[in-house]
């Protein structure tokens, strides 16, 4: 039963070849159509693959029939906007102010405003109880 790997592989491949011959006519037809489309782009002298070839590719990638990537980019843009929003919100958030007050409390360097705040007064009374 220990036939050499090569032989087994060969036999498997023979079956695969058989499978290829059995492909449905519809699939064959579509493959042939795909081939024709590809060959229609054939040029005797293909464009020089030099210099800014990548730029061309990038532009092509962005513009040409990449509908789903447009959708992806919309999603990415939405994400960026959301992230910018979060950063902005965090920067104006009163959390920083609160942190300052806490630090002041802990280091006994409270700003004057804190003593003018009635809420602070009542909180002190409540918490000292």
């Amino acid at each position, binding site marked *: *039963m220990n036939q050499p*790997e090569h032989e*087994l*592989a*060969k*036999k*498997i*491949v023979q*079956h*695969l070849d*058989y*499978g*290829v011959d*059995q*492909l*449905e006519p519809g*699939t*064959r037809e*579509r*493959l*042939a159509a*795909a*081939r024709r*489309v*590809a*060959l229609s*782009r*054939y*040029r005797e*002298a*293909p464009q020089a*693959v030099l210099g800014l070839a990548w730029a061309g590719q990038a532009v092509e990638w962005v513009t040409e029939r990449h509908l*789903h*990537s447009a*959708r*992806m980019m919309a*999603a*990415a843009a939405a*994400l960026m906007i959301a992230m910018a929003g979060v950063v902005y919100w965090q920067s104006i958030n009163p959390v920083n102010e609160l942190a300052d007050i806490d630090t002041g409390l802990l280091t006994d360097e409270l700003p004057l405003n804190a003593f003018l705040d009635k809420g602070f007064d009542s909180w002190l009374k409540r918490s000292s109880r």
Partner: protein
Amino acid sequence: MRCVTQPSAQPKATPLATQKELSDFFAEVERRAYKQALFAVRDDHQALDIVQDAMLKLTEKYSARPPAELPPLFQRILQNTVRDHFRRQKVRSLWTTPLSGLFGGDPDNEADPLETLEVADDSQFSEPPAQQVERSQVLAFIEKAIESLPARQRQAFLLRYWEELDVTATAKIMGCSEGSVKTHCSRATHALGVILRKQGITL
């Protein structure tokens, strides 16, 4: 049989591939390429798209190569296209699945591997029906077994034995060492042997 031959047989100043040669090459390789893509993505539409993309890329960018260089080049493009497909699918499902309700896109439904099994065409009368059925059943098992292999093993096996590329070319296409190509191939063949034996199939 196949035109996958030794590049050394080609003289140095070879003429570049003509449109006819390219066409012949595609006609010869396209069905196997389709099957390869199908084993990987398990969806016939996507497999067709991948083959078409690979053909387009080869024609647009690399037709200025001698015909002997086409097979390994095409295989590399094909494998890259399959990989890109998976990468894109991953990114897409990451971002658009939660949004698909909003955009109305249909979520990629998992393809049932049974649906992609090729069943023999009834119109073949060249051999007796019983034999035909048996053969197509064996084929179905083999194709399923190949689908179930780890991607790298399947890739190595198909490139080496089906596309008849040598170890060096396969290693280059897969971007790994020749040693690991051999390991992948041997593991793949071994695994296939075990699977087939379990099904009681002797080839």
